[in-house]
Structures are given as structure tokens and as C-alpha cells.
């Protein structure tokens, strides 16, 4: 067991864990931030996606030994009041069904729009196809990402 300092949603934490404990379980078991979900544990479903410097990362693939001094954003920290353009777009387009994969999907979409505020449909499909939704919310997700992109670009003007 070692101690690791990391920042999550702007709050610094010192967690005690084995070196190889994935960030996913630090978030869920140590910090009680259960919004980030387990889906496969091998980085192929996207349910555990979190942000670091605007980039999407699979929390199940980052060992504790690599989290020291890093700062992550989870779904709980995306906005204090459901005001992030992706959250708003997700609600406006009524994307969620069971909702379980949606935190990962929203974080992935945030990273996509951070990287490319005006993605083409092909770019949206390409990036979002790394994640799995078994309910089949993809059509609404596409619309929500386009809506969020519009909101972001209209704010910038």
C-alpha cells in the first residue's frame, strides 16, 4: 500500500492503495465518486471515461502509481448546476435510457468538443464508437453532441 496525492474535480485527495489499483476503483471505492462506471475493466467500453486537461482517459487503465499530482474531472465535477453544454444537450435531446453508460459518453463527448469544437458527423461517429451503449441511445447522442457544439460555438462568437 502506498499513498497517492491526486486532485479530482478540483479537490485534493490523499488515497492509500496498491500501486496497480486502477483510478476507476480509487474514484469509486476510496473517494465514493460512483458516477464513473465499471463496464469492462479492459478499456473497450468507455463507461469509466474521465477527463484530464480536457482529454478523455479510461479510468480502468490508469494505475494508482501514475495518478500522483494529476488532476481529473469526473461526471460529478463537470458543472455545479447541470450547466455544462453537454449535460444540457443530453437533457434537451433526452439521450439517456438506462443511463449507466452515459457518464462515460458525456465525458467522451466533452473531450471531443474540447479538441474539436465543430466536429463533422464522421468525426463524432469515429470518436464515440469507442464506447458501448447497449440501450441504443446513439441517434440521440449524435444530436446532443451537435447541439452542444452549436451552443459552444455560439457562446464563443
Amino acid at each position: 500500500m502506498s499513498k497517492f496525492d491526486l486532485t479530482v474535480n478540483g479537490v485534493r485527495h490523499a488515497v492509500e492503495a496498491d500501486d496497480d489499483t486502477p483510478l476507476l476503483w480509487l474514484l469509486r471505492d476510496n473517494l465514493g465518486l460512483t458516477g464513473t462506471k465499471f463496464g469492462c475493466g479492459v478499456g473497450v467500453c468507455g463507461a469509466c471515461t474521465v477527463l484530464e486537461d480536457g482529454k478523455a482517459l479510461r479510468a480502468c487503465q490508469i494505475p494508482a502509481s501514475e495518478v500522483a499530482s494529476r488532476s481529473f474531472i469526473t461526471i460529478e465535477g463537470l458543472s455545479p448546476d447541470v450547466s455544462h453544454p453537454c449535460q444540457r444537450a443530453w437533457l434537451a435531446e433526452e439521450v439517456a435510457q438506462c443511463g449507466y453508460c452515459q457518464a462515460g459518453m458525456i465525458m467522451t463527448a466533452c473531450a471531443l468538443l474540447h479538441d474539436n469544437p465543430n466536429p463533422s458527423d464522421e468525426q463524432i461517429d469515429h470518436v464515440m464508437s469507442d464506447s458501448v451503449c447497449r440501450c441504443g441511445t446513439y441517434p440521440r447522442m449524435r444530436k446532443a453532441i451537435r447541439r452542444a457544439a452549436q451552443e459552444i460555438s455560439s457562446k464563443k462568437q
Partner: protein
Amino acid sequence: MITSRRDFLKTAAFGGAALLVGFDGSRLFGAGQSNAAGSFAPNNWIRIDGDGRVTLTIGKCEMGQGVRTSLAMILAEELGADWTRIKLMQARPSPGSDLGTGGSDSIMSSWKPLRQAGAAAREMLVAAAAARWNVDNTSCSASGGGVVHLPSKRRITYGFLVGDAAKLPVPENPTLKSASDFKIVGQRTNRIDGSDIVTGRARYGIDVKVPGMLYASLERPPFAGAKLKGMQEEKARAVSGVRSIIQLPRGIAIVADNTWAAIKGRQALAVQWTDPPKDAFDSDEHWKQLEAAARQTGFITREEKAPPGAAAVTKTFDAIYHYPFYAHAPVETMNCVADVRGNRCTIWAPTQAPERLQNQVAKLLGIPPTDVDVNITLIGGGFGRRLGVDYAVEAADISRAAKAPVQVLWSRADDMKCGHFQAASVHYLAAGFDSENKPVSWKHTKAGSFHNISPLDPKEVRDTAWYQDWSWGCYDVPYAFPTIQTAYVPVDLAVKHGPWRSVFAPSSVFARECFIDEVARTCNADPLAFRLEMLTGADVIKAGRTTIDRRRLRGVLETVRDKSNWGSPANHRYGRGVACNAYSGHTYIAYVVDLRLDHDNNVHVERVVAAVDCGRVINPIGVEQQMEGGIIWGISSALKGEITFRGGTAQQSTFADFAVARMRDTPAIEIHIVGADAERPFGMGEPPVPPMVPAIANGVFALTGRRIRTLPIRPEHLKEPA
């Protein structure tokens, strides 16, 4: 009538500050009013508090079908409630309750009792207001969470009335609203719990934490009869956080302080099992059995004979259709928290079958079901998987042995390999034609397997209705052939199998809707026009317990024909397929699918034009979501992963080898809702699935001339020219 056994209402008042109306659509409760909380325990109830809040305790499980929202809408409509002030609570199983959620039944079965309960509460509130104003009830009207005296325009909100209303008798026969007065039912309504989902606040089974909880991973025998050969117990114990290794008949549990330690401990344990025997279950061998069985006569599930003197069959042709094994693969793997203490047990589970769970856990522990408290969490994907309760029984077993509350979490591989699968089946179909090449006979034999997630009752009478229950989509063929024979041949299946989204319908509807296309082509007929032609004659037909309204099936077919410009495909590189289905005679759906092949012969569905008639629509958004979800589910089944078995074990273990549709596989989808002003609503969770796969297969035929009789469709099936 509320006085009937099925629709009993009662009230109770807690300290005069709230009005409660309890109801249950399926069984009788003790009569009378009560002020004691303990004696007021219906499965469903409405509570209106002094501050005007309305709390609806619902008896259905939420797994993404939006049932919480749609049930709340029905209640709010009749109650005249303020939609923004409705709160929901999840009911728990209690003696006689039936909270099971499956079979696309929730809306259908809740529609009437919820309306009656809402209407009864509304009438009590109106009566209380009228008495207070000393005016006639009929001069008052309720809406938006308050009562208005129409002549004077005085208004009082429900919160001020609950004390008085609670003292009134429950009206035995409240007047339901006229559909023309609906203000909430039928409106596009956002999910009641949407913001919880986009903020990470929604709590699923996996998110449950209770004080002192330990975490367990269970290594299960890979096939029935596997024996422990060896394991590295010391290595597992050396993993920090591992508390204990517990051997149980159902497997070896690694119990730890956190999830990762349990996962790591299981890896370190490196359990070795005995090799499977030569005759261990193998899907290739099973296919041979199914194929042989499909040629047998089986149990006749429907027999219609042409009248004497009808045209004789002069030509027949037949085909065999194969439908594979599939996993449910919800993104939230199976999990459960159990806390066994002495002779009691508390469970927190994402479950579709709370009572089955309660009973099976009670049986394991040898205690009465009433001593098992079941807390139902949100479900991260149900699809029928969580009608099985194996994961909860495991959790109780491990908690009992560990003497602590324990969460069992399945790995993705556990979930893929140890689920109850959609069973494979083989379908034999034959059609007969008269001398003028008119189709006059239809034969469909399904060789498949009953569920084995809970033991079948050996005393149950295995009559025609019983066999029909195992072959939806087969015996209820809607087409007007003068001669029809459908049959079911049960084939033993050693691996676990059970309900999956749309239960038994997908395999039969795949075979039926592809073969009717073959029949149409044999007659040189357009497959959509041919279906319409074969849906003439009697408008309403009975097949077993199923009543099929051919007008509604024609309605959805005509809608997709017109909306898709059926005669002129969108693109000459596209193939276009059609299929339709009447799900249990309740919900009617038709699809027109446009698809193309890429250079590697992969099928890409580009566009789906869909029509759905599910009766009265509660929430159009919910209907659209289920249609989209069913279409994507169908694309997964038609084009993505299947489960195969070797040595008694499923060979797939991840989303890589059991692939499901991703966003890149998602077509443009156009949904047309028809018949939304019907009297009653029907279900939407399952019906969108079955006709999707055959619509794709028929589109592939239209494009390539190659008949798809085996799933999933693989590029190698399409390589050679037809």
C-alpha cells in the same frame, strides 16, 4: 370498478397531514381505513402531503424503459397534479406483491389501476374543497395541483385539502377523465430522473455502499460438473486487502476490502478446473440436434385446414433458418449487495424480478421470504437478464459465509460467459402453391428450448397454450394462408438460457418474415405488397390466446410503404428490405431498411423508416427511444456478435469478441407513430426488436440475391456471387 378484486383502493391518513390512496392492479387488500402505518402496505400508493408534494410509490423496476416517467404521467393526468411536484419512490416486495418487470407489460397493466387511483384521489380532493366552500362538487374542477370553484374562480391547492380529503371514503367508481381532456398523457415529456443521470447522481446496483461492506469476486466452475483441480490460495491471501477465500458449491469467493483487491485476489488464486468431458456442451453439436428436431412433427401449436374443395397444393418449397445464441451484455455487469444477519437478510439489487429474488434467497437461507428485505436499485440495462436472480443468491451465500455485508461484482467475462443466454433455435418452413402459383399453405416448425433460469413445474399441463407460450412469432403467423400448421419441438439445452429482449419472438419472427419474403419472390410479387395482400380476409384473427388485428398490421406496413417511397429506393447502391410483426397482438411495428455493402462485404444499415402502433401513447419520447433502442439491438443481432460454446463454456468474454453495435453502426432513423389516440396503451420495451433482423436480411437479399438463413450475417456469407 374499484370494489372488484382486481382494483381495490384504500386510504389511510398519517396524522391528518397527508392523503394516501393505495392500489394494486393484481390482487385484493384488506378493506378499511387505517391510521397506523404498519397496516397500510399496498404495493403502490399515492401520497399527497400538506405541502402539496405528490409521491408515487411505483411497483415497477426502472431499467431505461422510462417506466417511472410514464407511470408518473398517467397518475399526474388523472390526479390533476402539478407535474413538477411529483416525486417517485420504489416499492419493495411484500407478501402477495408482483413487482416483476418484463414482457413489455408495465404500461398495459398499470394504465387502469393508476388512473382509477388518481381519479379517486382527485374526487376526494374535489369533495373536500366543495365541502369547505359549501358548493356542489360538480361546480369544481381539479388541475395543476389544485381545485377551482368554476363560478367564483376560487382556487385552493391540494396541500390544504389533504387533511379533509383523507377523512372521506374512497369513491368506489371514480369517473376517469375523457381522453380529449388529457393534458399530460400523450405529451412529449422529459425523463423524470434525467438530471440525476447526467450528473452521476443516479444510483445503480453497483453504486450501493453499506457500512462495513466487503467486496467479493466469485470464480465459478466453467462448465457443469467442473471440479477444482488446484489454486494458489497463499498467493491470493498475500494480496493486500484480501480477507478470505471461501469455497462454496457455486464457486470460490474472494472476499476483500475493496473491489480491486477482490479482482486481483481472484487473478492470484489462479484456479484450475478439471478438463471438460468429451460430451460437454458444444454449440456445433447442438446445431445438429436442433436441425434434426426441426424435421420432426413436434407439438402442433396451430392447425388450420383449407375448406374441402380448396385448390390442391401442386408445388412446395422449404427452407431452414438458424438463429444463434446471444448474450444480454448490459453495460452494468451483474452485481448485488447482501447482508445476512442471523435469520434475516437485506438485499440491494438491480433486479427485474424482486419476488423471485426474495424467494430464492429465502430458500437458500432457509428463512421465510418475508425475512428477506429487497431494495430495488436502478438497473444499468435489463433486457431480461435481471429476471434471473443467480447473482443475488451468490451474494447472500457469500455474505452468510463472510458474516458481513458483501457486494458481489461480476467481471465482464463473468457476465458474457455465465449469463442465461438467448437460446439457439432452428426453424423449418415450407410453403405450398396451387396450380396457379398461388400460395395456399404455410408450415413453420420451431426447434428450441424452454427457459431454465428457474425449474419448470412438472405438474404444469403441457397443452397447446403452453407450447404456444414458447413459440411467439411462430404460431401467431398473421398471414392468411388457407392451410397453416405450426409446431414446436423442445430440445434439451444444458447451458443456462432464459428471457432476452423480446423473449421467444426474435428467432421465430426472423424465420417467418424472411420466409414470407421468399414466398413473395416465388410468386414474383413485391414483398411489401404481398404482405398486405396476405393480410386480407378477416380483420381480426385469433391464434391461441393472441388476437391479431390485421388492420393495425396493415396500417404500419402502409405507413412505411408511403413514408419510405417504397417503390423507389433512396440509392441504387442500396438494398431495401421490409419486415413487420404484431407483438403478442399488442404492439404492431413495420420497418423498411436501406443498406449497403462496403468493399469488404460488411453490411451497413443506412436508413430505417419505422412505423409503430402501440395503442394510446403515454410519452412519445419514450416510444421513440424504445424504437431506436430496438433497432440498434436488431442491428447488433443481425450483424455483430453471437455466443458459441466449446467444452461446456461460452467462448466469448468481452465486447471485442461479442461485439455490439456502436455509434458508427447507427443508421438514420425515422419513426412514425400511428394509432396514438387508441383507447388503451400497450408495451414498447420489446416489440421493436423482432422485425428488425429480418428487415436487414431481406434487404441483403434485395441487394445481393443471397438469402440470409443464418445469423449473424458475416462478410464471408456474401463473398461469392449468388
